[in-house]
């Protein structure tokens, strides 16, 4: 397995995807139509990578693309939904066909599995999921949860096991060459995912100087020591959006959801936007400069 050495964190998208082996356990950033490292996901698919296992909170886009390309083996998730557009078509069909194994959590419980890992604890107690099928039906993770009373007060709690994915794949606003990563707007579960994962790859809209990062250190979500590799990928979340950079592409989302209705039409989508374009810049040319400019954020509103 390739390892990126310190001081050479800026790599290409192809190099970043090459770091991720088949069958890796991934956790991927994203919430609804934002923060999704979709240029990286497309490159993973283009390179033929697959057989992935996911631990997921809101990375509906990455999960649906991987499922639609037949690259997703199993997932523990709290929610995959294209907000405003309905269910994730490819993921739903893959689970219904028995091609993807799923094990469900709530948002707070799945995140708490990363928090446990981030804090160096074997597990984390929560007060959610109790009494429901999220506890009773655990096809993958029977050994990852346990009900037990608080040893100090006796209150009933659910303990969830620490989760340490092999990789966190993250899309963020900007970073410097040392891998200090800043995110504008809400930060989803990026920090918890990155602190839990063994290795962290970040794609960003902008590469800036270390001085620029240090002028606004309160915005640094991931300090460089957590981050193995950084890739400069403008519009790297498209068709999802990035707050203060660009809005999500409603037109393209509708196109994607329509294409996802059947395996045949989704195969055509992948041909057009993944296999049929050699790299991310060819993808952007296909989307077109006019559309990309229309999506640019208004600096006052941030979208």
């Amino acid at each position, binding site marked *: 397995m390739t390892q990126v050495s310190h001081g050479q964190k800026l790599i290409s998208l192809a190099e970043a995807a090459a770091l991720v082996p088949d069958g890796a356990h991934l956790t991927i950033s994203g919430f609804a139509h934002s923060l999704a490292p979709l240029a990286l996901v497309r490159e993973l698919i283009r390179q033929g990578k697959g057989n992935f296992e996911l631990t997921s909170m809101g990375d509906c886009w990455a999960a649906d693309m991987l499922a639609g390309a037949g690259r997703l083996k199993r997932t523990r998730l709290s*929610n995959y939904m294209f907000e405003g557009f309905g269910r994730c078509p490819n993921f739903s069909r893959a689970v219904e066909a028995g091609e993807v194994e799923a094990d469900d959590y709530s948002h707070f419980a799945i995140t708490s599995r990363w928090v446990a890992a981030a804090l160096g604890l074997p597990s984390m107690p929560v007060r*959610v999921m109790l009494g429901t099928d999220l506890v009773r039906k655990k096809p993958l993770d029977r050994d990852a949860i346990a009900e037990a009373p608080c040893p100090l007060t006796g209150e009933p709690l659910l303990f969830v096991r620490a989760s340490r994915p092999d990789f966190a794949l993250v899309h963020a606003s900007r970073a410097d060459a040392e891998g200090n990563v800043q995110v504008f707007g809400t*930060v989803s579960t990026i920090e918890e995912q990155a602190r839990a994962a063994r290795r962290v790859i970040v794609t960003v809209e902008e590469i800036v100087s270390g001085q620029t990062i240090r002028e606004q250190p309160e915005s640094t979500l991931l300090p460089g020591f957590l981050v193995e590799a950084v890739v400069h990928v403008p519009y790297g979340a498209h068709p999802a959006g990035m707050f203060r950079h660009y809005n999500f592409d409603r037109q393209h989302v509708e196109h994607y959801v329509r294409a996802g209705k059947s395996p045949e039409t989704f195969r055509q989508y992948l041909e057009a936007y993944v296999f049929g374009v050699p790299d991310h810049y060819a993808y952007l040319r296909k989307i077109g400069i006019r559309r990309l400019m229309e999506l640019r954020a208004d600096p006052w*509103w*941030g979208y």
Partner: protein
Amino acid sequence: MGQEIMAVAAARELRDNEMAFIGTGLPMIAAYLATFTHAPGLTLIFESGIIGAQPRGLAIGVGDFKLLSHCQKATSLYYALSLLQAGRVDVGFLGAAEVDQYGNINSTAIGDYRRPTVRLPGSGGANDIASLAKRVIIIVGHQRRKFPARLHYLTTPGFLDGGDSRRRAGLVGGGPSRVITDLAVLGFEPVSKRMQLESVHPGVTVEDVKAETGFELLVPSTIPETVPPTLGEIRLLRERIDPEGEYLAPPQPAAPKAV
């Protein structure tokens, strides 16, 4: 009309200065209506990490940048949901694919869990909200298939098996207080925690509600009519909150009843 009265009935469940955890669609419309009328001090929280939203216009979802722009605090999902566990959230609004007689919700799967007929999106923050908020309001269209005798999957807790089973399971939030549909407002009988009819919307009969409910509904001897929306509420909904009719479709002519 059905959706408008749902939004109005839901808005009236919110009190001024409460902390409210809000989902997409009608819950959001109801929350906006409350802030424009009797609850200007409502704090809107979204699981995406948005605290104190001050949205300009309708959002398509809880991750919409319209909610994030100019909110009080933009933070993480974990922070937002931890407010629930710390007991700081008064009320949560939830939608449902299926709801049973104890207010339990399915939003995960129809059919067998491992090989479902229809895979739904999953809990998201719904289980967290329903486990932990002081009270929960469920907003759902009133159709028999959405009110089954038995859920395919219990994603989100209401009163579980009724009685004190919710408390015994270790759930610290208060559970569902209201179920608001396009036919009626429903609540829960205090001891058994079974769903009971509270009021029927204008033009709806108790029999209509029973016909669209797949379990036995408790029906007290007198059922009032839901207080209809005021002209002011209707104007706010149609002219200010949802002028494009994105969620509140224009009223459809009633289908002729089979004789």
